[in-house]
């Protein structure tokens, strides 16, 4: 074990612990932008710098291994000055329109500016001009709000494996980009939206949820995705009894299967819930026209038709094609019905296609 003193408090940590974790154990709230426990370390945003006695420069705590007898101050004057200046530098390039920004209320840039009292940037000069039109239906990309933490690049590579984006150019011209800075739809992007999940600011947001409600206005209802049998956990964002979006719950306790990662359907394909096209009662077709029916009537009709087909053509003239969108138990019952009640092995499932 290593002995450290953090903000005057003595703590012990196992060898190999990173300083950021040690600070958190000691109860210090160290701000971070680029740090993400699910992703490889970048050490680039420098917000997590802390003062370590005897070290020449401030240390980025997320990439600094703990050493025995370290004495650390997480809010020293030099540390606070560095964080404030970094925030001012980011503000100077930022498209500040918090009043209409989707991320207001859950934006790290906003939170840290509030925390450190950074109301304006003394470095205001030329702004970035990074954003270009991307007409995809899902992901809004406003790189004039980007803070270059590269969490999206790492998530795209390390969580999804799509490798659709990287960093192009260098210096302050550097920006997140697909190959040849083209549209996402022309890239290897699968529109899973993991980039939105990890983006700490308003640079990436969901077009589907746009203008439908801010994070703090929504109740988050933990549920399981209905699209397939994987069983991903997601949060339905509910405002005024309407689902207005889906967000990730990255806590492995609540989201053991996917730890927040979703696919395009789970993250963006929730608009069917309140769709007017959605069926709410069974329909029976008579003379080429559908009419509403009760479940009892519909099931009786289906059962009698199946029976008559079986009698006339034999059980193997019937097949059942089951869906990934129903539960395992329902799938089990479906094949049981075919084998036991109908008497055929003609059972298949969309997941095999």
């Amino acid at each position, binding site marked *: 074990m290593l002995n450290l003193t953090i903000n005057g408090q003595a703590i012990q940590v196992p060898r190999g612990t990173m300083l950021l974790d040690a600070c958190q154990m000691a109860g210090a709230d160290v701000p971070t932008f680029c740090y993400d426990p699910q992703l490889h370390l970048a050490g680039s*945003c*420098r917000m997590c710098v802390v003062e370590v006695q005897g070290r020449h*420069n401030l240390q980025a705590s997320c990439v600094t291994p703990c050493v025995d007898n370290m004495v650390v101050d997480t809010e020293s004057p030099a540390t606070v000055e560095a964080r404030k200046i970094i925030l001012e530098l980011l503000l100077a390039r930022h498209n500040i329109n918090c009043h209409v920004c989707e991320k207001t209320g859950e934006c790290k840039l906003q939170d840290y500016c509030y925390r450190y009292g950074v109301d304006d940037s003394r470095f205001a000069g*030329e702004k970035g001009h990074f954003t270009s039109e991307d007409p995809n239906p899902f992901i809004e990309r406003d790189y004039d709000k980007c803070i270059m933490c590269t969490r999206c690049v790492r998530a795209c590579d390390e969580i999804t494996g799509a490798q659709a984006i990287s960093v192009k150019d260098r*210096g*302050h011209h*550097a920006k997140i980009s697909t190959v040849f800075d083209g549209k996402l739809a022309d890239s290897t992007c699968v529109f899973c939206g993991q980039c939105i999940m990890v983006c700490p600011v308003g640079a990436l947001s969901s077009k589907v949820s746009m203008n439908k409600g801010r994070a703090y206005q929504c109740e988050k209802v933990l549920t399981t995705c209905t699209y397939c049998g994987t069983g991903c956990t997601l949060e339905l964002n509910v405002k005024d009894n309407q689902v207005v979006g889906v967000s990730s719950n990255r806590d492995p306790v609540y989201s053991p299967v996917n730890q927040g990662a979703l696919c395009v359907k789970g993250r963006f394909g929730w608009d069917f819930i309140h769709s007017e096209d959605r069926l709410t009662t069974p329909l029976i077709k008579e003379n080429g026209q559908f009419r509403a029916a009760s479940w009892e009537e519909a099931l009786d009709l289906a059962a009698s038709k199946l029976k008559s087909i079986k009698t006339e053509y034999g059980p193997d003239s019937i097949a059942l094609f089951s869906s990934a969108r129903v539960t395992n138990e329902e799938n089990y019952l479906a094949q049981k019905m075919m084998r036991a009640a109908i008497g055929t092995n003609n059972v298949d499932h969309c997941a095999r296609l």
Partner: protein
Amino acid sequence: MANEKRVLLEYADQIDPRKAEDYIKVGGYKGLEKARSMNRRDLIEEVKKSGLRGRGGAGFNAGMKWSFVPQYADTKYVVCNFDEGEPGTYKDRIICEKNAQALLEGMAICATAIDSKQGYIYCRGEYPFMVKLLNDAVQSAKASGALGDFDIEIRMGAGAYVCGEETALIESIEGHRGEPRFKPPFPGVSGLWSQPTVVNNVETFACLPYILTNGADWFAGIGAASYPGTKVITLTGDIENPTYFEVPTDYLLRDVIYKLGGGIKDGKKFKAVQVGGTSGAFIPEQNLDTPIDFDSMAAIGASLGSGAVLVLDESRDIVDVVTRISKFFEHESCGKCNPCREGTWRCREIMERINAGKACPEDIEKLTVLSRVMKNAALCGLGQAAPIPIDSTLKYFKQEYSCKLITL
């Protein structure tokens, strides 16, 4: 040239750097022979004892650096940093043009010490002709048998000053964007392709054959005690003899300018000198009687760095020169960390405003705080050093800034 002490450049223009035979005729590859006869620990001790320190930005003891390489690893690499990007610097090119075989021998000595079979020379993209020369030199050395089973491959950079930073250089050899890695882990433990790697520059490697041949004590006796040996320096700017020299490290800066350099061009007066390249501090007249060695330079808030010496005469506009330098750093920042990516941009903006006579005293305060944060919090040496020219000129030439400010 009087006052020079030529070790690395003793046979300049007398031997063909491409040909191992030429080099062997003047005593070349004797040091490697000796190194191979020693056990590895003694070899590293010998290099440590010589006091050889890196001829680049950090001035780290070379033998010490090698001693960090773990012995258990199967693959280890020797990497030569030939990415001398500091404006005003061309000493590594001169060493290669005059004595490339000494570099190869030095790398092979390092390979012997750390038990490596593969070396890389990362040559800056501005020198494609040097890639050719080095390839010929390696071929000749291999054919002569001098290198034994140690192979050296030349890789070419593509115009990125930041790749002079050892981890950015490693990233570039691996085929990535030249963005520095955070340290630790240091390359000695996990470097090229995550294997233990020693990175030294051309001049550092080229000293080794002479240390091995003549002994550590001989080397330690040359120049300044804490930074022994010779240093190849390149003189540029308003100087009569804008060329290169090899001098002992206790040589005085004043003598560099007035003895070797022949004084200020056209009989003008001296104003300032920037040592170590564009990331170095500007030094005023009052500090000229300082030896050029690493520690003496550090003591006056400057750095020896690459050994580039840019001399400015009395007619030069310091603010204009520093404005240009700030544009250099804006251009060369890799963009990975916030303080450097955004800071170099804003430094250039403010410097241009001052230079154009459109700035007010608050702009100087902004520069000062920005520079402090960049030094304290940037990820690598580039961002930490970028404000040094601004700071040093604000310290010694404040008047030149003041007279350009708008005061109400």
